[in-house]
């Protein structure tokens, strides 16, 4: 092969991979954790993508004085109502548009829950008329009296309260919603776009920002926003910003280190090639096989860089005068090959068709490591002059022998310390796993706290708790949701929850509407009763004729169906809680202030047709995450078995296997213990990082126990491993300072793990080899 053929081939492959990657979306998606064919999980995913609670944006206004906050709240609401992306803006001072009011008015006797037979008894009618008369006395009557002739029993008022109430109304100050302490004015915006529609959510968030800028101009009022859409867009922004900053810093750190150690700029770009190859190949293969990449895989790819940077470093440090680059590589190849093979095979165990998330990690690693090691082995010698050698400032010297000198007692002590740590972990059995989805989320904690604060203050339904009813048609779904709503009322009385929202509260089922119809009084009876009870009251004769006519019309009117309200605000709100999908129809009842989710879930009235589910989204996701983690651990065990087998095949001696594996085992124990001591709980991000520590640690063990008798060779190996360890610490130490839980978890775990692996391998690998021989 000619010299340029390999670089050309590499370049073409890299371009091809790049082309594939550009077309593939990154999914920050829960499907990652979801095993196939789990009906609850499917409902759950729908809820996370587009459920009604994912459309809510909670807004808080702080700063300045109360009056300013109230004024800004009012102006902001006004502006947002006239802009496109929102179905509803509520701030306590919201009124239903006149046209919608007339829809409610037209259907009042079918829709109003208070329009029962008890409302039309002579006694009740008399009481209602007397009350209306008293209201006429009021100076405010000018506004209300227009409803009187057609609605003496006040059904419109009942309906209006239903419409405006929502779950639980916050306290009002200066006419708008405020938090209980009065520090925040509160607004609730419901977006037209579903929660998963990030572009739509971003548009809504931008609209709020813009409206706020004009509404709050000249006042020191500050805007706070939360809700799933806001969190998603803000998270995307902060993660991107922080990841970019940290990766720039980390790259600078590594470049600086390589230049300082080798005094050669060439090491920088040559060293970057295997890393680049790993990223491109890993991402491209994942894209080809899965069509999308999970955010978790992307996070893992960062950790993989730590391992791929090691391969060229081995080459750089082992270069010596009078040896061609190709020959150096040939000398290193058995160990390097073994290093790569252990990682590759260890990851094979993770590939399982029913757990796509885990398979992705495996596929990415395998493709990435294979590409990196191939690049090091074949591309690098093609690019480097055969006699190239980096000038080493911090060189290979005799001083290293002191470090390399076998210290059996120290090795024994380290081994015993490791065992004791393991024993302590087993005995103490501290809570190890963090399965809470919130801890996995790249969202800054303060934002989550703000979300909880605003949610509590607004009494907005939590994203966490809801009841989902699936049924073949809208009517059945409505009927079942009425049964569930009645049951929830009883539970609310018992204090098990603070409130709930249900479509049946605003739109009763046709069955209920027909029952109401059947109980409406006959015209003649009502007319007689009304005339009798109006005696002695000053109402004009015939004043209530519109009332009599409307009741008569309501008795034969067709029931209101969801489609009758299409195109109205009422219809939009109903459509969020009741909608058709591939399962037929789904009705949702979001809950707020749930005290005992388990009790509620257990007592749920069953459906006759269709299904009723209690979805504790948090518990369900946590269950899925825990399931994912268990599967991952289970597969890892197989991976370790495979690694042992590969090393044995490579070294053909159990001593070597033990010398390579004992240090990394101890390093892993120490890392876990250290993380727990720091108060961390292990999340999936820790777990994938431990996987990387395992890969790197095995490499260290293998290199330290290389069968090279030559002390000069050993010094070079130590040099290489010092640089590897140093660069890994530079990159991951940087990540450990991140505010983002995921980056911090990765950084901390790999930093501790690499340092521990290096120390353990240095101290133990040779004594283990020599002692046992």
């Amino acid at each position, binding site marked *: 092969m000619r010299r340029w053929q390999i670089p050309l081939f590499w370049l073409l492959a890299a371009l091809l991979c790049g082309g594939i990657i550009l077309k593939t979306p990154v999914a920050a998606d829960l499907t990652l954790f979801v095993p196939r064919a789990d009906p609850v999980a499917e409902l759950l995913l729908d809820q996370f993508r587009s459920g009604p609670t994912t459309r809510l944006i909670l807004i808080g206004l702080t700063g300045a004085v109360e009056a300013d906050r109230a004024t800004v709240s009012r102006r902001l609401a006004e502006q947002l109502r006239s802009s496109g992306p929102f179905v509803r803006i509520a701030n306590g001072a919201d009124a239903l548009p006149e046209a919608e009011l007339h829809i409610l008015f037209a259907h009042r006797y079918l829709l109003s829950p208070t329009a029962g037979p008890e409302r039309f008894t002579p006694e009740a009618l008399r009481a209602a008329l007397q009350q209306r008369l008293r209201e006429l006395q009021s100076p405010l009557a000018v506004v209300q009296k227009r409803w009187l002739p057609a609605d003496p029993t006040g059904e419109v008022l009942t309906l209006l309260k239903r419409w405006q109430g929502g779950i639980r109304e916050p306290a009002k*100050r200066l006419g708008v919603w405020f938090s209980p302490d009065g520090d925040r004015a509160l607004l609730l915006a419901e977006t037209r776009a579903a929660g998963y529609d990030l572009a739509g959510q971003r548009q809504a968030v931008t609209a709020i920002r813009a409206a706020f800028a004009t509404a709050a101009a000249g006042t020191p009022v500050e805007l706070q926003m939360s809700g799933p859409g806001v969190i998603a867009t803000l998270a995307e922004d902060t993660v991107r910003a922080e990841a970019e900053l940290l990766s720039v810093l980390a790259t600078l750190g590594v470049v600086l280190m390589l230049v300082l150690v080798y005094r050669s700029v060439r090491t920088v770009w040559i060293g970057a090639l295997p890393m680049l190859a790993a990223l491109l190949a890993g991402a491209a293969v994942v894209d080809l096989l899965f069509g999308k990449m999970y955010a978790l895989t992307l996070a893992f790819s960062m950790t993989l860089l730590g391992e791929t940077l090691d391969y060229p470093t081995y080459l750089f440090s082992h270069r010596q005068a009078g040896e061609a680059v190709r020959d150096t590589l040939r000398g290193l190849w058995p160990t390097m090959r073994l290093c790569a093979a252990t990682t590759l095979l260890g990851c094979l165990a993770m590939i399982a068709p029913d757990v796509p998330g885990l398979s992705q990690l495996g596929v990415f690693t395998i493709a990435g490591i294979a590409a990196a090691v191939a690049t090091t082995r074949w591309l690098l010698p093609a690019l480097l002059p055969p006699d190239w050698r980096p000038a080493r400032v911090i060189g290979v010297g005799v001083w290293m022998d002191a470090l390399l000198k076998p210290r059996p007692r120290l090795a024994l002590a380290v081994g015993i310390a490791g065992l004791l740590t393991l024993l302590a972990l087993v005995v103490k059995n501290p809570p190890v796993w963090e399965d809470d989805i919130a801890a996995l989320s790249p969202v800054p904690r303060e934002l989550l706290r703000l979300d909880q604060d605003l949610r509590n203050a607004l009494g907005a339904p939590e994203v966490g708790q809801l009841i989902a009813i699936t049924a073949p048609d809208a009517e059945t779904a409505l009927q079942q949701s009425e049964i569930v709503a009645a049951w929830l009322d009883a539970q609310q009385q018992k204090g098990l929850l603070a409130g709930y929202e249900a479509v049946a509260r605003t739109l009763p089922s046709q069955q209920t509407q027909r029952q109401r119809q059947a109980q409406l009084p006959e015209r003649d009876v009502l007319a007689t009763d009304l005339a009798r009870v109006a005696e002695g009251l000053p109402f*004009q004769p015939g004043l209530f004729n519109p009332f009599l006519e409307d009741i008569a019309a309501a008795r034969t009117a067709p029931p209101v169906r969801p489609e009758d309200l299409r195109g109205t605000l009422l219809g939009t709100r109903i459509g969020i809680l009741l909608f058709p999908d591939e399962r037929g129809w789904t009705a949702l009842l979001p809950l707020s202030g749930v005290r005992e989710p388990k009790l509620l879930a257990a007592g749920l009235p069953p459906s006759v047709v269709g299904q009723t589910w209690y979805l504790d989204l948090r518990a369900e996701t946590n269950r899925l995450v825990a399931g994912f983690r268990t599967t991952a651990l289970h597969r890892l065990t197989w991976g370790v078995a495979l690694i042992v087998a590969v090393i044995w095949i490579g070294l053909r001696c159990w001593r070597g296997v033990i010398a390579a594996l004992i240090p990394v085992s101890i390093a892993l124990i120490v890392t876990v213990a250290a993380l727990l001591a720091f108060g961390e709980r292990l999340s999936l991000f820790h777990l994938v990082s431990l996987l990387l520590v395992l890969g790197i640690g095995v490499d260290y063990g293998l290199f330290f126990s290389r069968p090279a008798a030559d002390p000069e060779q050993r010094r070079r190996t130590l040099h290489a491993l010092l640089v590897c360890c140093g660069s890994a610490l530079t990159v991951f130490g940087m990540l450990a300072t991140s505010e983002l839980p995921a980056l911090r978890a990765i950084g901390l775990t790999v930093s501790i793990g690499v340092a521990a692996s290096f120390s353990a391998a240095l101290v133990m690998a040779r004594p283990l080899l020599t002692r046992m021989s």
Partner: protein
Amino acid sequence: MKRWIGVLLCWPLTVVATDEALTEVMRLLAGVKSLQAEFREEKTLAMLQQPLIATGRLYYQAPAYWRKQTVQPQPEDYAADGEWLTVETMDAGKRDFNLNGYPQLRPLVEAIRATQSGDRTTLERYYRLEFQGTSAEWTLRLIPLDPTAATYISAIVMRGKNERIVSVETLEPDGDRSLMIIESH
């Protein structure tokens, strides 16, 4: 014809004169620091065969406290203090409203409260003012500026003598009206 021209020529003069009188009345009203009075209100509504008659007491404390306490035919209490309106009725109990949050209530409250405190600026925010008479005996007609308010109220007419409001008449577009006669002591 000549008479008409004369009237037209004098028109600006009368405007200036009435404006001066209005300023004077406002100044007189602003001088009242507190007030207690009895009222009798008669509401004539198309829906009812006979007028509704209510009696009770009024209280005023400069600059922003104004209370209407109905005693007959049933107790009701409306107290406006600054931005707040507290309403207490038999049927709904006691409720607080913030006037900023209820744009339809604000003009109703300010009509009498801002007049009583001689606050012309506030009055002119919600109403067009038409003044007739002299500061000794005057009529101030308030016509709502806001079109929504105009659908409820066509005018509120205050009649007074010097610093004393004698009556408040509310006229609605549908012909309904109420007349409140105030007797201070």
